[in-house]
């Protein structure tokens, strides 16, 4: 695993492990609750990609921003979102992040710098660039990470915003999660280049490939990009090579990829790998790791219970929070 900026504090490392697991357990429960019928709509799980969000967000300041995607639960947990409020939102409850109005694709926590999941592929790119502009104009030193999938890389919004961020030297990190597919469309079929970092040169920004199954490598890459951003040197592109272990959404029969391929990737699971690392390096004992599992499990169950017991929004809330 990448160790350039390490050693990180032990508490940081354990917190990262906690977050990785939190995402995995959260999503696992989401699948169950979706099948149970208490979560509706379209839900895209982050299972397999946890190291991206956790490694990246661990390298950020609490007041930094992120913009997320339709596959947003991981980013939200990574950046410090509250699983109770998330789960309540998924169950459409009044106590949820969005008072039940947003659902999976619109969870946001402005105070935690989470500028929202997004149902529009590429929809976060302008918001991220604007957040970078705002940080710069306010002199706040905040950076904004713009998460997007490799499928989203072909949206015009990326081009326009990356150019703007570059010429204005905005503190934005374009973080492309290349999980190999956009629904049924493989990156090979959809995209003109096989190494996506080639596109960074078009915006005169550094572009680095990173192993998205290696949480520390992701941390490292983000850390460097954030330093650069805070130093006023402008945006960066990070391309993480990762994989979603589950279908695009729940119910996807996945005719576009083989079971073997999925199995191959599952073997590289970033959470297992990081767990082994913590033990091998003597950072945590096996029983400490197990303790985290239990804690996280309890936390998720608590969130589910909180969500289940929370009230539905009042019908009167329908016309609240819109002013035109």
């Amino acid at each position: 695993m990448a160790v350039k900026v390490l050693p990180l504090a032990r508490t940081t490392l354990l917190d990262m492990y906690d977050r990785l697991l939190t995402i995995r357990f959260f999503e696992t429960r989401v699948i169950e609750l979706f099948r149970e019928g208490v979560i509706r709509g379209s839900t895209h799980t982050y299972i397999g990609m946890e190291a991206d969000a956790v490694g990246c967000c661990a390298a950020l300041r609490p007041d930094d921003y992120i913009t997320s995607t339709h596959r947003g639960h991981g980013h939200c947990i990574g950046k410090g979102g509250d699983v109770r409020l998330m789960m309540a939102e998924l169950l459409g409850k009044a106590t949820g992040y969005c008072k039940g109005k947003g659902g999976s694709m619109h969870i946001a926590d402005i105070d935690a710098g989470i500028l929202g999941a997004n149902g529009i592929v590429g929809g976060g790119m302008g918001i991220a660039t604007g957040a970078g502009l705002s940080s710069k104009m306010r002199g706040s030193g905040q950076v904004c990470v713009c998460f997007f999938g490799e499928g989203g890389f072909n949206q015009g919004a990326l081009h326009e915003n990356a150019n703007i961020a570059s010429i204005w030297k905005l503190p934005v990190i374009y973080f492309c999660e290349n999980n190999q597919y956009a629904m049924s469309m493989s990156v090979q079929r959809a995209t003109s280049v096989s190494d996506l970092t080639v596109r960074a040169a078009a915006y005169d920004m550094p572009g680095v490939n990173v192993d998205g199954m290696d949480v520390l490598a992701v941390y490292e890459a983000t850390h460097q990009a954030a330093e650069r951003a805070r130093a006023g040197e402008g945006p960066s592109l990070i391309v993480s090579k990762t994989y979603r272990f589950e279908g695009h959404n729940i119910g996807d029969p996945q005719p576009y990829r083989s079971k073997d391929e999925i199995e191959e990737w599952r073997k590289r699971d970033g959470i297992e790998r990081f767990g082994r690392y913590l033990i091998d390096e003597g950072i945590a004992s096996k029983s400490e790791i197990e303790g985290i599992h239990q804690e996280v499990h309890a936390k998720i169950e608590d969130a589910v219970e909180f969500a289940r017991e929370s009230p539905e929004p009042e019908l009167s809330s329908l016309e609240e929070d819109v002013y035109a």
Partner: protein
Amino acid sequence: MPDATMAPPAGSPTATREISYVMALNEALREEMRRDPRVFVMGEDVAIWGNKGGVYGVTQGLYEEFGAERVRDTPISEEGIVGTAVGAAVTGMRPVAEIMYIDFMALAMDPLVNQGAKLRYMFGGKARVPVVIRTQEGAGRGIAAQHSQSLEAWFTHIPGIKVCVPSTPADAKGLLKSAIRDDNPVMFIEHKMLYATKGPVPAGEYTIPLGQADVKREGSDVTFIGIHTMVSKGLTAAEKLAGEGIDVEVIDPRTLVPLDIETIVRSVKKTGRVVIAHEAYARGGVAGEIAMQIMENAFDYLDAPIVRVAGRNVPIPYNLRLERAAVPQEDDVVNALRNIVPR
């Protein structure tokens, strides 16, 4: 109901089958692609997603039959998809481009509105733009504000674009075939909650001309004009209200551009009362336009103000109850019809 103008199906002139809206659309695409080699399909996940093509299955099996040249999975590039389709249309092809959700048309308005819709006119009539943009709209699946809008009003406003909004399998098939044969841009707007609905569809070849409303039920007390899901809600309401002695005429315009105002006016002259229903946000929705045209053509026949039953002016919320409250339900239609007819 199958339209009177349909060509009788070969062999068995009156034969129909019960098929779904999604399969009716699929048949239309398949038949037109067989008939005309210039017709092809492009869009995100149209080839191999799910059960062999299309997020809602409209293009299923086409890739198997027609191959990758004529069933093109595209990158996620809505502006590029529509732009490319328009360019192909101007140069001799007849593309049918799919935009997965009408909400994403917000990314592709320029190539349709500023290019496709206007080229022919701007060029003094010298270009033909036979392009169909297929998409779907509507609430009901709990996918919230960016995947549930009904935006037909945007397109209805722009000269040069025809707008189809079929509500039944038979209409969906017949209109899509006409749209593909049209030499002008057509926004073909399906509804996500209709895909699974079934209805009788003629067994043979037929088309339904654009610009012909369908009187889905005759009645004498009030004219109900509905779009998409509102048509069946109107029919159900009509049955219910028949028991109360209220006789509802249910009209489905089927195409908003051209709008068959004659059929609507004929009905209004008979009933004197009108309810217009759609899921789209009430403010600026097409109900206002239809009402305006009724007023322009039949004001003196109106015995009561035209009533609209439409989406609330809020983004569509995720929560089931809120989502239901945001768009008209059965009861809203029944109440509007009941209230407009004097007791």
